Every structure is written in structure tokens, then in C-alpha cells.
């Protein structure tokens, strides 16, 4: 009963926000988590070492720099955190500092009055981070500070490529198709994809769309939710041709992305397939899926998604995404200081040294020790723009419909036009 009482209170609070456009709880209301002004709750998903210990140390350092402030750090497994955050948003009892993935999801949270505008309070940090902040801006205001932004590309097994006699990774879709043929000729399954989880399959479409559509069309689509440009259909046709080369592991339609040795990542990590389209997290995931904890080790290679001939997109543009620290609307001011501290040169350097991700603070760029991550960092920094994963950018509702349709294309049960139609239909519900 206590819970529903609280939910009712937060509903009242939220309607108050809508009516008066003033922050609820400004009068010392204690419905915000943590209670008093000097306690900050901080949720993160680095629940393994070294990340977990590092963040504990960071919290201690912050406490000693700010006497009287108490930081309650809660480390959770990623999936747990996502579930708990969803529940927190429902109840309105959001942790003071938490992770936002940006895009449409963040825009929804902003609209519901749950996230604090950091544009002025953290102006210095925002300027330092630069272009990466774009994914966390709504109406030119910045609501979260990205601390790790990575890009998606093909991770491959250099040994298997060598074995098949492939000397250079493909740079165009045609070359990718012939790479697939060569690998198959050598008796190697070319690629794995976790189409069972849908988003790994959808990443292929995001990328062919990124290569087929110009930056303007994509940027425009995010705000107008209009997918009528023919480049979106071309993207699907390009992908359909690639799927036609049958590059994927048997049973890929129900293969999960990352769980266990038979997942898409597991198949790459154990040398069952030669490549997989995945994000910057892949080496870490593969390490967790091999007994020696090495993943592909020295055989880890990476190449960017190939260019689409005749496409309007920049072949250097990258698909990516990341995590940002956000502050709850009702959090104490000290929480903003904590987030600023988390983006400081010092903390970001430590973050990079521990290979916890791809830091956004340029001062930390040189501290990344993992060669694969260091290579990605270069690609990211050289990219003319980083397109946020479409499902995040368009919000969960549209993104989910889009991912479902792409998964159907992989199963041969949808056409390129269907992807656009399904996405447009879901998007029209948003308008």
C-alpha cells in the first residue's frame, strides 16, 4: 500500500509540474530519492571489477572534496538497472544520478518532467565534450552528459580471415559479399547475428540507411518522424541483397545477442564464425564468454561498415551510441556537481585506463590502453557525425516496431517497403 500511495503522490507531483511548470518538491519535499540535500543516490551498471571498485573510489573522492555529502552508490547488472529504472520512472522516485541512453527515450523523460536541464550548470563540460552531446539534447537544451560513446562496426577473427586468404577487410557492400563467398568457400561460416534479440539485426538496417541516406535526411527524420525519402527503401534493398548471400550462422533467427557460447558474440569468440556486427562492448562481452577470459585476444580485428555504392550517406559516418549521466529533476544541487566531477579530466582518465568504455572528454583520449578500443576511439573522433542507434533516437515505440520489421526482413517475411511502412505507422501514433 505504501507504494501505491507514493505513486499517487508522484502522479500529483507530475501533474503539478505540468500545471504550474515549476519543479515539484521545491519546498523541501522529501519524495525525491535520497531524502535530504546531502545524500545523493547514484545508479550505474559497472558491477564488475575494475569498474565497480573504481566508481566506489570516485564516490569516496567526491565525498572528501565535499564534506557532509554522502553518495550512495548502487552498482547493478545492466538488465537489472534498466528494469529498475523503468519502475523508478513509473513511480516518479528516480535516483539522483542515473544513466540515460539519449534520443527519443530521453525526450519522453524530459516531457514527463523527470530530468534536470544541465545546459547552464554544466556549460563548461558540455563544451569540452563537443559534438557527442547532441544525442542528449532536446530543444537545444542538454539533459545528460555522455561519458562513453562508442561506434558499431564489424569485429572479425583475423586468423579465420587469413585462413580464407582475405588480405584486406571489405570497404564496399560488393566486397563484403565477395568476402562472404570467400569465407564460405573456405568452409567458414562468415557471420553471426543475434536476430533473436532483433536489435542486432536492426543494426544492419541502421547502417545501410546511414550509408544510403544523407545526414540531412536522417537528422530531419528524427524530428519530423517522416520516412518517405526513397533512401530508406534503398537501405532495405541493399540489406536484402546482403542477406541473400546467406552469410549468417544456422538458426540465426533465434540466436540471442550475447548470452552464452551459442549467442552471436559467443560464436565469434569461440571461432565458430568469422565476423559480427557489434558495438564497442564486443571485446568485453567476448572475454566473458571464453574460458580463458581472453575473447579473441590477439586475433581481434575491426573494420567499419562498408560503403553503399551510389548511396547519399558519408562512408565515414558511424552508427553509435553511448551512456550519459543524467540528474533527476528533484535531485539536490550536489548531484549536478557529482555529474560534473564524473566528466572531469581526472575521472574520465581513470575510466579510460580501466578500459570501461570510450571516454568523451578529449583529455582522456590518450589513456585508453586497449588497442581495439583505441582504434575505435580514432574512428569515432574522425567520423563526420555519429548517428545514434535508430531505436534509441526514435524512441522505444517507433524503434521497437522498426526492429521487429527488420527482423522479419531477415526471416524473408517482409520487404524493404514493409520496414518503412511499419516504422511510419508506429511513428504516426507518436504525432
Amino acid at each position, binding site marked *: 500500500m505504501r507504494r501505491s500511495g507514493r505513486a499517487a503522490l508522484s502522479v500529483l507531483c507530475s501533474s503539478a509540474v505540468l500545471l504550474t511548470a515549476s519543479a515539484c518538491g521545491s519546498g523541501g519535499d522529501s519524495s525525491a530519492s535520497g531524502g535530504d540535500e546531502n545524500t545523493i543516490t547514484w545508479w550505474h551498471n559497472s558491477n564488475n571489477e575494475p569498474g565497480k571498485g573504481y566508481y566506489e573510489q570516485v564516490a569516496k573522492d567526491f565525498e572528501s572534496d565535499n564534506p557532509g555529502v554522502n553518495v550512495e552508490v548502487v552498482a547493478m547488472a545492466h538488465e537489472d538497472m534498466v528494469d529498475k529504472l523503468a519502475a523508478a520512472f513509473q513511480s516518479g522516485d528516480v535516483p539522483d544520478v542515473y544513466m540515460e541512453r539519449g534520443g527519443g527515450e530521453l525526450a519522453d523523460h524530459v516531457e*514527463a518532467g523527470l530530468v534536470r536541464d544541465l545546459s547552464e550548470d554544466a556549460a563548461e563540460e558540455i563544451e569540452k565534450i563537443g559534438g557527442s552531446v547532441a544525442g542528449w539534447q532536446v530543444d537545444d537544451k542538454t539533459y545528460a552528459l555522455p561519458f562513453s560513446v562508442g561506434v558499431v562496426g564489424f569485429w572479425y577473427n583475423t586468423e579465420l580471415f587469413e585462413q580464407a586468404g582475405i588480405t584486406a577487410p571489405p570497404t564496399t557492400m560488393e566486397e563484403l559479399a565477395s568476402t562472404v563467398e570467400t569465407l564460405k568457400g573456405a568452409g567458414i561460416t562468415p557471420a553471426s547475428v543475434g536476430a533473436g534479440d532483433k536489435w542486432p539485426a536492426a543494426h544492419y538496417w541502421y547502417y545501410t540507411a546511414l550509408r544510403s541516406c544523407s545526414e540531412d535526411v536522417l537528422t530531419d527524420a528524427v524530428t519530423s518522424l517522416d520516412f518517405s525519402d526513397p533512401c530508406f527503401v534503398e537501405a532495405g534493398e541493399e540489406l536484402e541483397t546482403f542477406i541473400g548471400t546467406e552469410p549468417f550462422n544456422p538458426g540465426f533467427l533465434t540466436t540471442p545477442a550475447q548470452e552464452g557460447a551459442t549467442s552471436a558474440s559467443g560464436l565469434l569468440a569461440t571461432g565458430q564464425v568469422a565476423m559480427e556486427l557489434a558495438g564497442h562492448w564486443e571485446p568485453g562481452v567476448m572475454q566473458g564468454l571464453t574460458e580463458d577470459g581472453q575473447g579473441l585476444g590477439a586475433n581481434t580485428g575491426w573494420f567499419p561498415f562498408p560503403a553503399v555504392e551510389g548511396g547519399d550517406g558519408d562512408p565515414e559516418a558511424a552508427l553509435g551510441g553511448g551512456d550519459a549521466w543524467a540528474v533527476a529533476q528533484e535531485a539536490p544541487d550536489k548531484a549536478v556537481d557529482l555529474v560534473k566531477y564524473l566528466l572531469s579530466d581526472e575521472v574520465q582518465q581513470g575510466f579510460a585506463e580501466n578500459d570501461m568504455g570510450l571516454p568523451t572528454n578529449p583529455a582522456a583520449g590518450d589513456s585508453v590502453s586497449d588497442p581495439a578500443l583505441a582504434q575505435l576511439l580514432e574512428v569515432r573522433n574522425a567520423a563526420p557525425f555519429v548517428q545514434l542507434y535508430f531505436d534509441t533516437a526514435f524512441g522505444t515505440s517507433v524503434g521497437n516496431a522498426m526492429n521487429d520489421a527488420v527482423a522479419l526482413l531477415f526471416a524473408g517475411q517482409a520487404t524493404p517497403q514493409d520496414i518503412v511502412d511499419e516504422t511510419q505507422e508506429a511513428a504516426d501514433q507518436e504525432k
Partner: protein
Amino acid sequence: MTSPVTAAPEGTDPGAAVTRRAEARRVTPRSGAGKRRQRLEIAIFVAPALALMAVFVVYPVYSAARMSLYRWKGFGPLVDFVGLRNYVRVLTDDVFTDAVVHNFIIVFASILVQLPLGLALALLLNRRIRGRGLLRTIIFVPYVLAEVIAGVVWFQMLQPRTGLLETILGSVGIPVPEQGFLGTPDLALATVFVVLTWKYLGLAVLLFLAGLQGVPDELHEAAQLDGASWWQVQRRIAIPLIAPTIRTWCFLSMIGSLQLFDMVWILTGGGPANATTTMATYLISQGTQGGNFGIAGAASVVLFLIGFVMAVAYQFLVLRRDTKEDA
């Protein structure tokens, strides 16, 4: 909290009669204080169950029904009232209608396959054969196994190329589908059903066996004296006598099939190409994954109504016979 039973005027309400009868059984039927105490007792014993029911059944049903009338993303107040639009979307969505069809395929396949199979096994295991205890255990173990663990084990066994099943089938020359059993849209639902049968057959056998033990030995003996064969005894005596058990099992199986979620979620996640979606997987993928809580709410109300109508109809048409016999 007062119980409705005691609120009724004396003598007119059958509930009061029950109360009085219960009271009569007590050592000293005292007036006033005793009665009050008894009301209190009823209240105390019933309250926890009612409270749990209210919190975990009534409130969720109410909140899902309310949610289904709004467009809601899972946070913030319910403000975007859309009337019945979510229902229209759900009922015209091919994925949902296919899911309903899948649910009903499972409902009927379960009864058509598991009932004869379970009955046959129960009749067999009711005979005095060697290793009966062991066989009973083997059949019942899958049911006791945690659903998730069983699901993960089957998922690994069904993996194409590396899976155990494919190795076994391959070694005896049975061709296996290129994409594996779970990865082929035409085979996925049947495969899921086979796993479900393996998992839940134990319950059917257990219930039927318990029913069969209740059949008096004298009847068997009398029939045998009359020269009835084993098969005749089973068909004319044992099975008719455990009919109430069979009807109850059918009911449980039906409800379970309508709510089917965990095994499907683990084995296929509703895929490939929506070939194995059920109403429950649909509402999870729309709700928590797609952020369309209104649509998920509408789907869950539809699921509730289908389940409710079927349960009431079954109660009315089939199970009523059993309760009548009792009375």
C-alpha cells in the same frame, strides 16, 4: 473489517446458518462475546488472503484496464485518453491475432496429445510392473524442474549443428532442418509444443495416477470375476471413474496454455518471424520492450477476457457435472 457473513440478519441468510452450524460444533456456544470473537477470528483469517488478492490480483487487473484506455509510455501521469483505440490496434494487429491462434493451437494440441498420452502412461504405471517407482519419477521429474532451467537446457540441445539433438538425429540419418528446429518458422511452434509436452506430461500422469488409486479394488475384482479383460476394465470402469480428474486437468491445461509465456520466451522469444508469439509474449514485447503500455494493457484485458470466458464456460458446461454429483 467486518465479514459480510455476520452482517446479515439472523435466520434469513444461509451464511448465518453456516455460522451457527459451525458454532454448534464448538464446546460451549456462548452468546454475545463468543459470536463477536468468532467474527473477529473469521476476519483475521480471511484478511491476509483478501489483502493479497486485492494487491496482487484486483489492483493489477484494475490498473491494466485503466491503462488500456490511455496512450502511456510507462511513466508520468495518465493523461492521453484514447478511448478504445488501443483495443482496435490490438485486435487488428496481425501479430496479436496470430498470437491468439498460437495460444489456441497449444490449448487444443495439449488436450489432444497430452490427454491420451498421459492417460496411457498413467494406466501403464498403475500396473504392477518392475521399476514402477523409477518410471514414475522419470516421468514426473520434468514437471518439478524449474521452467527456466528446462528451457535453457532444451534451447542448447536444439541448437543447430552443435546441439545434442541434431547430433543424435544426424547419427541415425534423420535429416535436420538447415536453420535448426527453433530457427525454422514452420517448425518452431511444433518444437515448442514438444518441449511443453515433455515438461507438463508429468503433471497429467500424476493427477491421473492419483485418480486411479481412488478407484476401489473391489470394482476391479468384480469386473475380473465377470470375465472382463484388462482393457475393458480400464475403459468401462477406471477411466469413467477418473473423469472428474480428467476434466480438472483439462481445465488446468487450458488455462496454462492460454497464459503460456516462459518456455516460449526462453526458446524463441516469440520468433522466428513471430511464428511462436503468444498473447503473453505480445504484451511483454509491446509493454516493457516497446514502451506501449496502453496497447499492452489492452492486450492483457483481451487475454483476461478470453481466459475468463473460457474458464466460466468450462465451469458451466463441463465441471458443473462434478460439483452437482458432490451435492
